[in-house]
């Protein structure tokens, strides 16, 4: 042949015109598009989610300190080319012009604060403002406006400074940090801080240096500053600042990666099916070409070049489609996500290209490579054996290459292992079970009615090919089941994390004598209030008589710990006892239950004797149990819990929590009017923000799931349509012999439904295995065998594959038999 390159283009064009390439090309295009779309979408989403969660800190990195941040550190931030800002928070009495007074949590802001997220302020104008307060002005939280009866333009006093109210603070990005800044917020400009004169040596002040920028620069600064931190100074980044959000995002990322990997696998399965079909359709053509003098090498070269062209075209076109798809997905979420424009970068395209390469090299090529071995004798003796289009070595090689691809793609060997393992189980078991059952079905079939006999005989005759289809269907259904199951438990878990009515306000410092009037207040307003817990601030001094080092000495290892102590005789909900046992109700023993991390910090275990101090009293208790606490639950949680009788001996106050609807926010003001000594911690904004993030991520996950479902459906369609060819001839003969369309369609439906239910069984076996590994090892979720999936999987497999197969094969019974027989 004069030029295989030239000839391959012509082969490609002719095949395209002849409709031979449709399935293979669509499958390749699907692979590249899905990978580019999902990987691009995940990249952008991840970037945006990181931004979003960075807004909880108002920065990417925060150094907090009880002393002013050294100026040299700020210079270093600039030297790294990072943006910076600062906040100084403290409690101070704020006085209005009418001499109304209220204790506020003051935050003085300077530099480019906030570096992530935005302030939102009602300045009385139509547009909500997002600028920092000008020097000489302040923003007040709504409750402070209410308490001080202040309005925009009024003057308020913070220490010696006179400041003008410039707006009502609607939200601030870092509202959840500085948990102990009780009282409603006042935001002022840091330039006025000296004027106030409230910051004296010994004042409880938190200074924060906010830093944001490129991740390399951040790492550089982080590494520079870490060794310089002393007692009272702390570095926080996005992941650590909000354990709830951190875990949520981590799971979401895990899920999206999983979804992306499944996309690759489904596409590969589609390509395998399509290439197999392509190879079978080309067997006769190759035999003719060989009889006309084409050598094995010519044939291989021809198909290799054709595939290479096909790969290049699908890479180009797939990248374009993928880009469009991720744009569309992203725009669908535009209302929920920050509107910043983020590019998807080059990585998704590289991922797409490598995917195409692996798919072509390991899935499309092997069946075509064997075309070179087709015997030219086939032109005169049709029964001459066809090169077996799929061998188990192909599957092994393909699965292994996919494993490597996924490993590279997700950098997660557990995920890869779980999926590849379960696919191996499905494939191995699949061929065994499918062939055994198909053999059995022949025996059943021979004693059954004609439609069934026809169906089962058909399945049996196509033995290996039927088994292959069952395995492909099984893998596709399995991957979809895994993804759906993981998504469901992920969303459930998130919903449980912050259920409707989660307390969003905490009340501290309730004097025991005020308990009844507090309960009356809530009862009158029909607001549900949580249980009242006693609370006392205390410190652990020694373990087993061994004094712990002073708590404010900065050193490694166990040291004194201060904490809020509480008491209850019933183990708190959501806590898990990991060692020891809970005490009996009403016990008078001196016992204590510790949170596991706390116990580790002070080096205590069950049976140890702790020396504690509350106010001036020192006493000893025995560690009765150690608990694991779910800190993501947004419920009151405690490090140290005593039996009720024990804490009664010490002076204590009560605390509780309650839930307020947003439109009932004014009740907080009412409550403080009645009981001004209470301290109320408002978490409503923070909880709302976490909910928003969870909602966004959930929607993203639903969208990605939808794409994967479409990919899965395409695999099923490819699998089903690949069997149309072989049925055409058979059906033509049967119809020529007088079989009715109803009988034939019935037989086809039964055949596919039987294969579908076999695939369903395989899919469930595989998905339970994969689900167990993924949920327990990767997403850190509880695992439960989904019994309900078993009958559902079998039934769904039968219905879906049955109807898809019948639909795809409808042509088989509608093409006039003569036409089919003539073509052969």
């Amino acid at each position, binding site marked *: 042949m004069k030029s295989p390159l030239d000839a391959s283009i012509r082969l490609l064009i002719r095949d395209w015109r*002849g409709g031979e390439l449709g399935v293979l090309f669509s499958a390749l295009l699907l692979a590249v598009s899905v990978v580019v779309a999902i990987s691009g979408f995940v990249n952008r989403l991840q970037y945006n989610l990181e931004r979003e969660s960075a807004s909880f800190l108002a920065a990417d990195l925060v150094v907090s300190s009880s002393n002013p941040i050294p100026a040299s550190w700020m210079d270093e931030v600039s030297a790294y080319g990072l943006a910076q800002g600062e906040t100084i928070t403290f409690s101070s009495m704020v006085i209005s012009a009418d001499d109304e007074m209220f204790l506020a949590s003051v935050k003085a802001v300077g530099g480019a604060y906030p570096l992530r997220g935005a302030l939102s302020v009602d300045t009385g104008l139509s547009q909500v403002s997002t600028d920092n307060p000008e020097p000489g002005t302040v923003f007040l939280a709504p409750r402070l406006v209410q308490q001080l009866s202040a309005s925009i333009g009024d003057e308020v006093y913070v220490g010696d400074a006179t400041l003008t109210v410039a707006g009502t603070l609607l939200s601030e990005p870092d509202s959840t940090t500085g948990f102990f800044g009780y009282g409603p917020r006042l935001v002022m400009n840091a330039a006025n801080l000296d004027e106030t004169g409230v910051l004296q040596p010994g004042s409880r002040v938190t200074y924060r240096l906010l830093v944001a920028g490129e991740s390399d620069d951040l790492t550089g600064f982080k590494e520079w500053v870490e060794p310089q931190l002393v007692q009272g100074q702390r570095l926080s980044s996005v992941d650590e600042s909000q354990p709830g959000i951190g875990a949520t995002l981590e799971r979401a990322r895990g899920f999206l990666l999983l979804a992306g990997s499944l996309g690759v696998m489904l596409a590969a399965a589609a390509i395998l099916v399509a290439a197999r079909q392509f190879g079978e359709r080309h067997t006769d053509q190759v035999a003719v070409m060989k*009889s*006309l*003098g*084409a050598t094995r090498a*010519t044939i291989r070269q021809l198909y290799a070049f054709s595939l290479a062209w096909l790969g290049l075209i699908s890479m180009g076109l797939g990248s374009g489609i993928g880009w469009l798809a991720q744009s569309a997905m992203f725009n669908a979420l535009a209302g929920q996500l920050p509107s910043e424009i983020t590019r998807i970068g080059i990585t998704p395209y590289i991922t797409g290209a490598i995917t195409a390469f692996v798919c072509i090299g390991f899935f499309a090529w092997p069946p075509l490579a064997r075309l070179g071995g087709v*015997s030219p004798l086939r032109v*005169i003796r049709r029964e001459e054996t066809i090169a077996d289009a799929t061998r188990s070595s192909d599957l092994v090689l393909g699965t292994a290459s996919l494993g490597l691809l996924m490993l590279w793609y997700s950098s997660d060997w557990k995920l890869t292992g779980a999926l590849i393992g379960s696919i191996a189980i499905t494939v191995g078991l699949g061929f065994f079970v499918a062939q055994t059952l198909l053999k059995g079905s022949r025996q059943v079939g021979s004693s059954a009615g004609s439609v069934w006999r026809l169906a089962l005989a058909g399945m049996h005759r196509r033995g290996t090919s039927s088994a292959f289809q069952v395995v492909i269907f099984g893998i596709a259904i399995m991957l979809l089941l895994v993804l759906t199951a993981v998504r469901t438990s992920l969303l459930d878990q998130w919903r449980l994390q912050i259920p409707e009515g989660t307390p969003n306000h905490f009340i501290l410092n309730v004097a025991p004598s005020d308990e009844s009037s507090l309960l009356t207040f809530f009862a009158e307003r029909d607001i549900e209030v949580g249980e009242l817990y006693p609370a006392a601030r205390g410190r652990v001094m020694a373990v087993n008589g061994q004094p712990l080092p002073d708590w404010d000495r900065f050193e490694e290892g166990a040291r004194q710990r201060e904490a809020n102590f509480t008491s209850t005789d019933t183990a708190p909900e959501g806590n898990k006892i990991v060692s020891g046992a809970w005490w009996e109700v009403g016990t008078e023993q001196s016992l204590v239950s510790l949170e596991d991390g706390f116990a580790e910090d002070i080096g205590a275990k069950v049976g140890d004797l702790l020396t504690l101090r509350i106010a001036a009293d020192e006493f000893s208790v025995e560690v009765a149990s150690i608990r694991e606490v779910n800190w993501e639950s947004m419920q009151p949680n405690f490090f140290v819990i005593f039996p009720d009788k024990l804490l009664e001996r010490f002076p204590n106050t009560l605390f509780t929590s309650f839930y307020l609807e947003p439109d009932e926010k004014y009740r907080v003001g009412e409550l403080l009017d009645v009981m001004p000594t209470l301290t109320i911690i408002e978490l409503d904004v923070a909880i709302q923000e976490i909910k928003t993030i969870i909602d966004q991520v959930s929607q993203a996950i639903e969208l990605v799931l939808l794409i994967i479902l479409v990919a899965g459906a395409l695999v099923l369609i490819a699998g089903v349509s690949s069997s149309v060819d072989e049925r055409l001839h058979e059906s033509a003969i049967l119809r020529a012999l007088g079989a009715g369309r109803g009988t034939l369609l019935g037989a086809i439906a039964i055949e596919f439904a039987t294969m579908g239910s076999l695939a369903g069984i395989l899919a469930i076996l595989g998905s339970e295995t994969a689900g167990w590994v993924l949920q327990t090892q990767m997403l850190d979720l509880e695992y439960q065998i989904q019994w309900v999936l078993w009958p559902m999987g079998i039934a769904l497999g039968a219905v879906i594959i049955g109807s898809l197969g019948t639909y795809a094969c409808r042509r088989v019974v509608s093409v006039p038999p003569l036409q089919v027989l*003539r073509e*052969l």
Partner: protein
Amino acid sequence: MIKTSQLIKRVSTAESELEILRGIDLEIKRGETAAIVGASGSGKSTLLGLLAGLDAPSSGEIMLDGTNIVNLDEDERATLRSEKVGFVFQNFQLLPALTALENVMLPLELAGIGDAREKSEEFLSRVGLEERFHHYPRTLSGGEQQRVAIARAFASQPLILFADEPTGNLDTTTGATVVELLFGLNKEEGTTLVLVTHDNTLAARCQRRFTMTAGHLEEAS
């Protein structure tokens, strides 16, 4: 041109080994036309496959234009086919994805012949299909398809043309037209023609006639 000696072909089945050809000695000279007739299953097609180098014998020799093709591997036989051999098959064996013209061009391209298109157009015209260059096989009648196959066989100007039941799938009238074409072109091109057929009229047109019976070949006088 073609010479075999003691050609034996055995195939293994599940139960036993079957001897399909039992020592065939045959010689056909350049430019001769030869027909092999015989009952179904007598081994005619197997012999044709061996002579054309589509398959390898169990033992014996096959000389094709001076080359013992038994000593060649499959690829070498393919190259030899592309240079010296043409085929016409019972079921035409046109590639459905290619037009009539492209089907004729295929062996020329495989042999690396430069003016493939011109040659193909010429031969298609010679079989009377100048109006059908760009038709796909499925839009052609059986007779037209076989004429495309004949054009394809002659276009590469082979030394030897093998035809396997060339009229087997055609009605009598169409078959006759095709036979006229086949022999006409054969005469013009001076090709050696070996055909396998059931059709005695067709066999009668050949200079030499062989009968295959249970693996043995005999020449009719």
